[in-house]
């Protein structure tokens, strides 16, 4: 009850501020200290002792856990708290969180480690040091209690933040010894023995998320909701053709429009309108005559890109790959040969919260409020764009309205906002992108094509497999200093030889994998599951084709090649068992199966679909199995699996970003369609952790969703689907 009341009063005071500043035309100086989003935690934190960098405990036992990673829906915030709390032995019901800033991290020599949140790394990369952070704080609190009670620390026990000395029947709470604990010499982190995950009490259980309540009543503040005294708003448009330039703008045409402050030319390829409100900025920009010099890329279209990729399929030489045996010879001598070419398109992220950033730049200070997956990259972008050194910059990082890889290393939206804000020294400027701008200027999931050739012997056994992948390289676009080529080429994700991250899971006797880099002018970047999604479709659908050519059951065909890959096999078996694979289905319903590895985790899926005589597809049910090593929050893992199915199915059913005249053509949700609730199949998740590694969760299961569905379609229609999205494929 107390919680409810305090939550309400917090909400009311915030609303009072919002309404008061709005009533004064946004210009009322309330003397509010920024960052407003961090106010409460920091203000209270200042009074409460920091036991160590990860843990602050207040006198009332409220336990503030510091979070360095981004929360964008994936539940990492709750999972990290569970890991810290598990070792800390605090009262879980008293846990709150504090998002540290990159400026704080920098000032403290990166005590919180890296802040980047992508590649399903949020928990698996930081789990060790956050658990040690929680354990170290516990050890310090216990020592402080021992000193206070004047007993040996070995005679103390702790549970739920209460330290007890059984011999004297005395107890003391964390909140009472936190100040003293802060002065205790911290233990050597390496000396700490962490708990066996099988004995976890808070971690490993499906506790509820810590961040749900403000998402239910409109009180949660995303970056797009930032309101600051005197704030201006900006709308932006970049040259619709990548690589093109701004030729001219006719500012006079919007001079009389209400609220417009300035037209800002940004670099040589973008225009922003800054106004009092965002609606004024957005509508003025829409009315602003802009001429672009689109340059030579203005003639690029889907067909020319497809030809370019096709060349990569047929050309000699490669930019990376590996293999064993002699696949060419094995296939040449095979009883039966199967060959297929698959293709997948560009895809946009389309986070529900459009790109935005609020910046305030003065002569000696630059601040930005950023929905960021990598706050340190945001800080660097702020410093670069403002021209101020890092220690004069700070980034505040509200939780994100979706990320999916769009808001990590690529901080273009920060650069643009800061460039606009620089025109108004000391005045905060919030730049919001329209959905059209978001879909026109993404870092897209790259295109690729893949030719696969397989040879079967007399018994229908696969004796040789050749995979030739042609497509755009993310590293070549975003990180050209990272060497490309060889067996670890990023485009081969899911087909690596070595175990650990995303290993090829079949023994095919003779294997040859090649990657031919064929880049386009379209910007590309990470996208939830990125290359695993494409490569799983290519491999798993082709295996389905080969199993059918061999007259074998697709599951048995796979199992026969997986003896050397027990973890891949176990998760495949788990999915098959849960889905009652082999048992009859209702008339007209067909099954498809797929397995793959990515982001350190093993995934498998069984799909049940029907295809009507008119070719209408219905996906009825998907069973997904996941081995992510340790399952920190099974409830949130289920949520991620469910979400990954929607993300994968959206791409399978609708996802494409056609290019015409050098630019994207599908610029809002009427054309770039997203799957709705009515199309969501029933999803069942089987989590089969083996407790011997740390794998990712947010991305791994996306990649098996689509091939399982496509394989079920093949079972239904007898024909393989080799291009996506399905909206362009006739199934009847």
């Amino acid at each position, binding site marked *: 009850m107390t919680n409810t009341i305090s939550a*309400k009063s917090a909400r009311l005071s915030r*609303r009072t501020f*919002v*309404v008061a*500043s*709005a009533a004064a035309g946004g210009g009322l100086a309330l003397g509010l200290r920024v960052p407003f989003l961090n106010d409460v935690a920091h203000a209270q934190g200042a009074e409460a002792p920091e036991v160590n960098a990860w843990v602050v405990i207040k006198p009332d036992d409220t336990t503030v856990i510091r979070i360095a990673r981004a929360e964008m*829906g*994936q539940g990492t915030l709750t999972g990290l708290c569970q890991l810290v709390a598990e070792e800390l032995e605090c009262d879980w*019901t008293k846990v709150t969180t504090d998002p540290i800033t990159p400026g704080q991290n920098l000032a403290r020599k990166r005590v919180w480690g890296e802040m980047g949140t992508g590649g399903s790394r949020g928990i698996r990369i930081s789990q060790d040091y956050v658990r040690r952070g929680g354990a170290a704080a516990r050890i310090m609190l216990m020592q402080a209690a021992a000193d206070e009670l004047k007993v040996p620390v070995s005679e103390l026990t702790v549970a739920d933040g209460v330290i007890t000395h059984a011999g004297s029947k005395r107890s003391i709470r964390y909140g009472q010894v936190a100040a003293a604990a802060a002065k205790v010499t911290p233990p050597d982190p390496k000396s700490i023995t962490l708990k066996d995950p099988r004995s976890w009490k808070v971690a490993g*259980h*499906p*506790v*509820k*998320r810590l*961040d*749900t*309540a*403000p*998402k*239910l*009543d*409109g*009180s*949660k*503040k*995303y970056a*797009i909701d930032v309101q600051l005294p005197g704030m201006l*708003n900006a709308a932006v448009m970049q040259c619709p053709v990548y690589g093109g330039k701004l030729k001219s703008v006719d500012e006079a045409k919007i001079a009389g429009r*209400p609220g417009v402050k300035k037209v800002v030319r940004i670099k040589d390829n973008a225009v922003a309108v800054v106004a009092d*409100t*965002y*609606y004024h900025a957005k509508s003025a920009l829409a009315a602003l005559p802009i001429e672009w010099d689109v340059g030579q890329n203005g003639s690029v279209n889907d067909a020319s890109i497809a030809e370019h990729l096709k060349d990569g399929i047929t050309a000699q030489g490669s930019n990376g790959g590996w293999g064993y045996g002699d696949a060419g010879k094995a296939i040449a001598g095979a009883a039966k040969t199967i060959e297929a070419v698959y293709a997948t398109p560009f895809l946009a992220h389309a*986070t*529900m*919260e*459009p790109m935005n950033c609020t910046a305030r730049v003065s002569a000696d200070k630059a601040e930005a409020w950023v929905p960021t997956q990598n706050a340190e990259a945001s800080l660097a972008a702020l410093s670069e764009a403002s021209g101020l050194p890092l220690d004069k910059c700070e980034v505040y990082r509200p*939780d*994100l*309205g*979706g990320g999916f890889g769009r808001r990590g290393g690529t901080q273009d939206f920060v650069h643009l906002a800061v460039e606009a804000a620089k025109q108004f020294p000391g005045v905060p400027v919030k730049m919001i992108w*329209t*959905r059209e701008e978001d879909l026109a200027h993404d870092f897209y999931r790259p295109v690729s094509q893949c030719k696969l050739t397989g040879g079967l012997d007399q018994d229908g056994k696969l004796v040789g497999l050749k995979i030739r992948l042609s497509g755009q390289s993310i590293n070549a676009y975003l990180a050209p200093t990272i060497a490309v080529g060889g067996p670890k080429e990023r485009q081969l994700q899911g087909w690596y030889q070595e175990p650990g991250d995303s290993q090829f899971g079949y023994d095919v006797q003779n294997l040859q994998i090649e990657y031919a880099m064929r880049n386009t002018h379209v910007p590309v970047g990470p996208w939830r599951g990125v290359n695993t999604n494409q490569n799983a479709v290519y491999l798993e659908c082709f295996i389905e084709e080969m199993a059918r050519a061999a007259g074998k059951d697709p599951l048995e065909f796979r199992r026969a090649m997986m003896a050397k890959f027990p973890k891949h096999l176990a998760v495949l078996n788990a999915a098959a068992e849960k889905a009652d694979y082999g048992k009859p289905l209702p008339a007209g319903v067909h099954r498809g199966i797929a397995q793959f590895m990515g982001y350190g985790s093993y995934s498998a899926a069984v799909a049940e679909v029907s295809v009507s005589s008119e070719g209408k597809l219905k996906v009825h049910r998907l069973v997904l199995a996941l081995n992510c090593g340790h399952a920190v929050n099974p*409830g949130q893992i289920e*949520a991620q699996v*469910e*979400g*990954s*199915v*929607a*993300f994968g199915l*959206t791409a399978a059913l609708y996802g494409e970003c056609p290019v015409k005249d050098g630019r994207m053509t599908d610029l*809002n*949700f009427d054309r770039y369609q*997203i*799957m*709705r*609730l*009515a199309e*969501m199949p*029933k999803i069942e998740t089987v989590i089969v952790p083996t407790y011997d590694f740390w794998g990712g969760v947010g991305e791994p299961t996306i990649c098996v969703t689509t091939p399982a569905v496509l394989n079920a379609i093949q079972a239904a229609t007898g024909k393989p689907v080799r291009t996506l999205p399905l909206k362009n494929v006739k199934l009847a």
Partner: protein
Amino acid sequence: MARLNINGEMRDVQAEAETPLLWVIREQIGLTGTKFGCGIAQCGACSVHINGQVQRSCSIPLSAVQESDKIVTIEGLSANASHPVQKAWAELDVPQCGYCQSGQIMAAAALLAKTPKPSDQDIDAAMTNICRCGTYQRIRAAVHLAAGQSGVTTPTERQG
């Protein structure tokens, strides 16, 4: 200058007649729970109730709203998030990033007001808002839970 009834309060707003209600709510009234997602009434992140009907506020100009119209935003749906839909959403931990959930909750509340015991088909037809995180399975379960329908499984093993 216009006068609006928002969450039971009469509010004077300064905005041009063509200004979408979404931006009036967000920028003039200062209630930011109603979200901008697409601007063309496709995604539903901007859903509000007008006289009990769920509407996509990004595509309704200020001039189309009368002083007598009762507008309810997510902030005004209930006191203390006590609406059955909000309670069901909390019970099943529906939101992921949460950005679309104001609109999802407003759509679900409007559905239940009209159809207290919706079937799956009713939910399919009414819940057309986009969720990019893909919370659809839990949204469906939470609508059933809010309707108090039997046969709806709740994850009883959840704790904390």
